[in-house]
């Protein structure tokens, strides 16, 4: 049961969680389900039962499925494009982690909290 051809499909390695053998599959999303199809293999999993990987510059993309299986790919750029086309957007935290501006702001905020804690703690210590 292969989906309509206009759904972007991504080649990945599927591990069923019972053996270490990689099964080459194609994955796509349709009607709220993640579908994967390979040689003698067909599965569909609700999107909310998939643990999606976060976008990072380095590292493999591993998606963990609720049945113990997992999908692996080293082509992070292809995964990110595919995820974007299917509307799998990054969370706010992931966006913050990938942005130097947000990270700099987080650093400044942390340093401010440390400075404030030191000043107020010092003042409390003297007054106490």
């Amino acid at each position, binding site marked *: 049961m292969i989906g309509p051809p206009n759904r972007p499909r991504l080649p990945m390695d599927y*591990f*069923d*969680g*019972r*053996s*270490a*053998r*990689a*099964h080459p599959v194609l994955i796509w999303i349709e009607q*709220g*389900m993640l579908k994967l199809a*390979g040689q*003698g*293999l*067909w*599965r*569909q*999993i*609700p999107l909310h*039962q998939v*643990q999606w*990987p*976060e976008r*990072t*510059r*380095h*590292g*493999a*993309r*591993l998606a*963990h499925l*609720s*049945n*113990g*299986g*997992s999908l*692996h790919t*080293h082509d992070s750029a292809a995964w990110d494009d595919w995820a974007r086309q299917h509307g799998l957007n990054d969370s706010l*935290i992931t966006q*913050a*982690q*990938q*942005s*130097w501006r*947000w*990270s700099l702001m*987080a*650093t400044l*905020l*942390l340093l401010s*909290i440390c400075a404030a804690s030191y000043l107020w703690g010092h003042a409390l210590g003297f007054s106490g």
Partner: protein
Amino acid sequence: MSASVSSGASPPSGSSAFISHNHAPHHPPAQSVQRFRVRFTGSGSEYLRIWIVNLLLTVLTAGLYHPWARARQLRYFCSNTLVASHALGFHGEPRKMARGWWLGTALLLTCAALAWWSRPAGMVAGLLLLALWPAFHQAGLQSRLAHTSWRGLRFAFAGGPKEAYLPWAAPFLILACLLMLGRVLLPALLESAGPLGAVLSGSLTGLGLAALLPYVHWQVTRHRHLGLAYAQLPTEFRATYRDAARLFLNTTGVAVVSAALAMAFGGLVFMLGLWARPDTIHPTPHLESARQALPVWLGLLGLAQVVPLVYFRAHAQNLAWTHTGNRWIRFKSELGFMPLLKLSLKNWALMALTLGLYWPFARVAMTRLRLQAVCVHMRISPDLLVIQAQNAHQAGASAMATSVRLGLRGST
């Protein structure tokens, strides 16, 4: 909508004999050895951004966000660790980790509150926590490994309460005997032999403790490595107490040489200083200069202890991992002392200069150096590895244990 499964996939060819559900696994035939160097692809600049954002969220939530930050960190390091071009996977769920982390934190806070309220109550609570610590430690190892996978198969850590407490029981008993011996022996020797007796008693206790330390290290390492399992393959640990004792002896030798060199260097600088400044108005110039040089000498002595620490770290990793494995999978660690020393010194210097902000870069660089020193030797094709029935059960175990350990230690 429930997931529909239509799996026409057949088990890997020739491996049906290895699929074991209710009886002991069959062992696969050995093949020629394939060697895979572990690779780490993480980046310091990327981890800095992940670390700083998660640290801020943890601080803003007074620590409540910590399990999510920890899960994100573990996932990053696992997905960047490649063995034979396949990355490790981390499956831990932050919500489950959070329950145990909060429980562990609550236990610690309760102990602290009891200690503040009543010293005896605090001591009892502390001893109780100490008594439970081996169980938490083992449960943490089991949970951490059960949530880590390679090529879709999860690792496991075998062992029950007996295995958790045995590595600590013997060292604890020996320590108790040594302390009792010292307590009984010391007054008797003082009475009969005077100060010489005290020195003798102290030396005997010291020698006993010196012999105990390698034993503790060996027992703890053995416990950690013997329990490892992947697919249907358990692990052996071949290092002996003699190997651990030799490591400690060598490290002591390095510490002595390092301290001697530091003192000699300090002495040389001191003498050069005296020679360069012969005119001084102080009545005892040498004594005054020695007093001024003392902090520098102590500092040098402290710095010199970095060398044996790094030496121990490099050789302890090589000893532990090179003696871990089984008939089909073995490890070989070749972590060099000099590269580790150079990296450690660089990391500490830059962390001091940047007030700790260099830490993510240091962590990534150290992880890369330590992981890429390890080579995995496999006599079995990974395609033939299958899960053992009990591994499936352990993989479904709650993450409570990891998180209690997290709460007690702050990190696994």
